[in-house]
């Protein structure tokens, strides 16, 4: 395990056991945050002059099917003045994949949250406009979940011929 950067320990001491875990695998500083604390943590990280994580980079989710809790929402932040990076994680249960929205802190996360809802079915509490981002409104299911078959299509119009390819069974995802 590598040495932890200073801002990570500051974060841990500031929020105590609302930060579940900190580590720095492959030099990527990571903090696992409790769901209820995420907005507060983000606001603090953005505004405190020791951290100043002002640029929101990315929000996505990972589906660890079979694990408990199943989903992990991953947020990447970067600080322009200090040039350091941070990854925040929030673990969510399968039965209750809801997370508070972080739009009040980082307005840029708006579409990222919509995308996450579209592809993973994770709801963002308080999001002003939680529609599907990429797929059509009539699409059923959330395709990036590991239990959605990769080649299950939902055409919008009547097709002239079948879409099954000869090697279609080979595109099934590898067993986890």
């Amino acid at each position, binding site marked *: 395990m590598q040495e932890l950067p200073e801002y990570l320990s500051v974060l841990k001491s500031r929020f105590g056991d609302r930060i579940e875990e900190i580590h720095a695998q492959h030099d990527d500083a990571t903090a696992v945050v409790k769901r209820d604390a995420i907005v507060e943590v983000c606001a603090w990280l953005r505004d405190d002059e020791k951290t100043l994580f002002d640029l929101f980079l990315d929000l996505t989710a990972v589906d660890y099917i079979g694990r408990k809790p199943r989903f992990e929402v991953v947020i990447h932040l970067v600080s322009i003045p200090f040039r350091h990076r941070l990854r925040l994680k929030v673990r969510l249960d399968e039965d209750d994949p809801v997370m508070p929205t972080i739009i009040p802190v980082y307005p840029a996360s708006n579409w990222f949250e919509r995308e996450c809802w579209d592809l993973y079915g994770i709801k963002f509490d308080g999001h002003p406009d939680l529609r599907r981002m990429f797929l059509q409104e009539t699409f059923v299911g959330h395709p990036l979940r590991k239990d959605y078959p*990769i080649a299950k299509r939902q*055409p*919008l*119009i009547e097709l*002239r011929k079948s*879409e099954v*390819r000869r090697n279609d069974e080979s*595109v099934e995802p590898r067993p986890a």
Partner: protein
Amino acid sequence: MGIDKGEIPGVALTTKLESLLGWGRKYSLFLYPFVTACCGMEYMSVACAHYDIDRFGAGLPRFSPRQSDLLLICGTVSHKIGPVLYRVWEQMADPKWVVAFGACASCGGPYNNYATMQGADVCIPVDVYIPGCPPRPEMVLDGLIKLQAKIQNRQIPG
């Protein structure tokens, strides 16, 4: 024009008219580039000065389906864009031709998943398929020449 309905009598005359029409049509293609993805980059190369598709009489893209007679599908067709593609094709006036530009538009290419259509021909009929991911400009020109031969040999339904 009436010719399509076969109103002009006389076999020999019709054949000649057919080839005259074909000759006229094949060198005045107005194309509608339906650019969705990476193949559009190669379409840009073909259309611009270096490869110059204008030498083959297809230099003028029309961005209205009603004014064009060649639909060039450049790129992946997803299920979401499917109805749009169908609508564009329906709006084109006859006689019309469709070219599938690239592997994606021909058969789905590298994408075989929930979002992509396995080729444009699952939703509209296609005349010429240009393989390649993306096809090189020379390949596109070759495909165009094949299409022109097809147009030249077209039988007027009577």
